[in-house]
């Protein structure tokens, strides 16, 4: 691993194409589909055609043999204009396809991955339950009991992304299969006894699909078990480490979007005889955002480079997620301030970022969880 993370010429061309797509296709529609709480299926399909859902996966299963950094670049550029579309991609890849690609058998991968990696279908990953999402070892009460060569699943999951879209083909759920045993099992959409509640009314991420799931005697073949029985806890810890780098990229995108919007607005909007950007109290806020964007970007890319180099990266992924998401919350709040009353309107990008920022500190491991990981790594 070199000392400095530089993009290759291809990664840079790719980043530019996604940036263009984000600016030309997603940005002009973002206010509308967020206000309507509409999952923008056409945009997701187009992203599928561009190969975005297949980036970090092998061509053998319909992926495009890309690298994890390229995936993060796509998240940054999309997150810069809209976080709902960004999280749909992040979760589609990181929570939907990754567990199957990482832990599935050859046959399972051949069966489920091609459609997911082409972005024609989406999958969810259901860990969180009403009893909790942090202390998963004790909060997981969903049970799977064997009956011949079938699992019978009973229980429920809460706040599951991409679980109820018109593209959703399956949800991987963690279920208790023994007193100290949690197992990941693939449940196809539409299975009998599997109910998907209407979308939640959320504070932000209005166009991202989030559902409550209920399993009432749902029967799926034992062949739907991902990896070894009882390996569920270990599996999702691995999945969440990668997800943290990806969420960090999404947060960096938001911070950069705040800078972009604020530079534009502060150059146009006038008060006391000059553009508001001519007042240092405003200009310095924007300068601070740029500092956050650049430092958070370099750090998540460092974590990513360690992952790609095969070095340990658990602590780095936690630091990246913690730092960039807390900076994103600050940047969104300050950007809203720069916009004044207009920043409180959801028709503005910064207004939507203000709504979307908070969840970044909660999903895929709260800030407290990241601090726990870092402290533990320090021997505390």
């Amino acid at each position, binding site marked *: 691993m070199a000392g400095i993370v530089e993009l290759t010429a291809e990664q840079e061309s790719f980043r530019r194409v996604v940036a263009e797509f984000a600016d030309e296709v997603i940005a002009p529609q973002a206010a509308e589909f967020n206000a309507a709480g509409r999952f923008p299926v056409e945009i997701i399909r187009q992203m599928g055609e*561009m190969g*975005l859902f297949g980036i970090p996966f092998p061509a053998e299963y319909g992926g*495009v043999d890309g690298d994890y950094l390229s995936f993060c670049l796509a998240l940054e550029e999309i997150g810069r204009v809209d976080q709902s579309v960004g999280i749909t991609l992040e979760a589609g890849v990181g929570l939907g396809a990754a567990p199957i690609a990482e832990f599935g058998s050859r046959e399972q991968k051949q069966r489920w991955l091609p459609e997911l990696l082409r972005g024609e279908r989406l999958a969810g990953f259901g860990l969180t339950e009403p009893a909790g999402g942090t202390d998963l070892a004790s909060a997981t009460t969903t049970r799977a009991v064997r009956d011949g060569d079938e699992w019978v699943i009973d229980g429920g999951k809460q706040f599951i992304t991409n679980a109820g879209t018109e593209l959703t083909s399956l949800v991987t759920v963690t279920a208790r299969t023994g007193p100290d045993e949690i197992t990941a099992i693939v449940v196809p959409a539409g299975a009998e006894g599997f109910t998907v509640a209407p979308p939640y009314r959320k504070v932000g991420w209005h166009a991202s699909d989030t559902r409550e799931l209920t399993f009432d005697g749902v029967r799926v073949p034992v062949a739907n078990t991902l990896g070894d029985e009882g390996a569920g806890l270990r599996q999702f810890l691995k999945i969440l480490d990668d997800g943290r780098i990806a969420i960090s990229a999404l947060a960096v995108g938001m911070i950069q979007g705040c800078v972009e919007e604020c530079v534009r607005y502060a150059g146009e909007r006038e008060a006391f005889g000059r553009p508001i950007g001519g007042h240092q109290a405003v200009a310095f806020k924007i300068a601070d955002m740029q500092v956050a964007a650049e430092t958070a970007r370099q750090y998540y890319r460092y974590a990513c480079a360690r992952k790609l180099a095969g070095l340990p990266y658990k602590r780095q992924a936690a630091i990246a997620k913690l730092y960039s998401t807390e900076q994103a919350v600050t940047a969104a709040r300050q950007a809203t301030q720069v916009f004044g009353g207009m920043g409180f309107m959801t028709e503005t990008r910064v207004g939507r970022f203000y709504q979307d920022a908070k969840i970044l500190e909660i999903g895929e491991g709260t800030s407290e969880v990241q601090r726990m990981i870092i402290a533990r790594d320090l021997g505390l």
Partner: protein
Amino acid sequence: MKVLVPVKRVPDTAGEKKIDPNDRTVDRESVESVLCPVNEFAIEEAMRLKEQQDAEVTVLLVGPESAQPVVRKALSYGLDAGVQVVDDAVVGSDALGTAEVLAKALAAEEFDLVIFGNQSTDARTCLVPAAVAEILGLPALTYARHLEIDGDQITVHREHEEGWDVVESSLPAVVSVVEAINEPRYPSFKGIMAAKSKPLEVRSLDDLDVDTSRVGSDNAAAIMYEFRDRPPKEPGTIVEDDGSGAAATQLADWLVEKKFV
């Protein structure tokens, strides 16, 4: 079927361009260079022929070595191969000089169809496609807003102010397309990664047997004598209605005066 798509490197359309006072050409340092956006429509049309009729598509660019990223960009849409004509003698060519080089470069390839964008976003002369067709002695089907190939017949809808004409010819032919023809795709991740390993041949004017007395700034028929900065945008006229509806008449008169209706 073999299709050739000539593309051009242009200064970023959205960027503020500067003219170099010494040689009166666009100062390339002052603004980023990109693939001409109109070419994206030609590329998309070629990609459709590739997908529907298994066409083999080659992109052609005349420009310095530093323009190679533009060829790669064109290839990233999924085209098969590239040809780049690199020669210092080309610098400063006008539309006819450029057409001369393009025609020779095209003649060196086998093709059934050449698809141009109808204009480039920097010069906007719209002359090159027809000039190339003339030099090659091929039918020119310009301003196409719709294109269909059936065997060795091509039909296009040629756009003009009142609508379009249906124009047919046999292949090989030269087409130029307008932006109404399609909705260009974005390059895919795979396409971008594959672009660097697509074959790209570099040719000189010598290789192509171009008569150099017809190209370059010294032989250009179009000469720029003077240039000026774009005048600042004038403020618009605001028509206010006094409640009587007179504003509507004023608006209508203005539209008629400006020949918009």
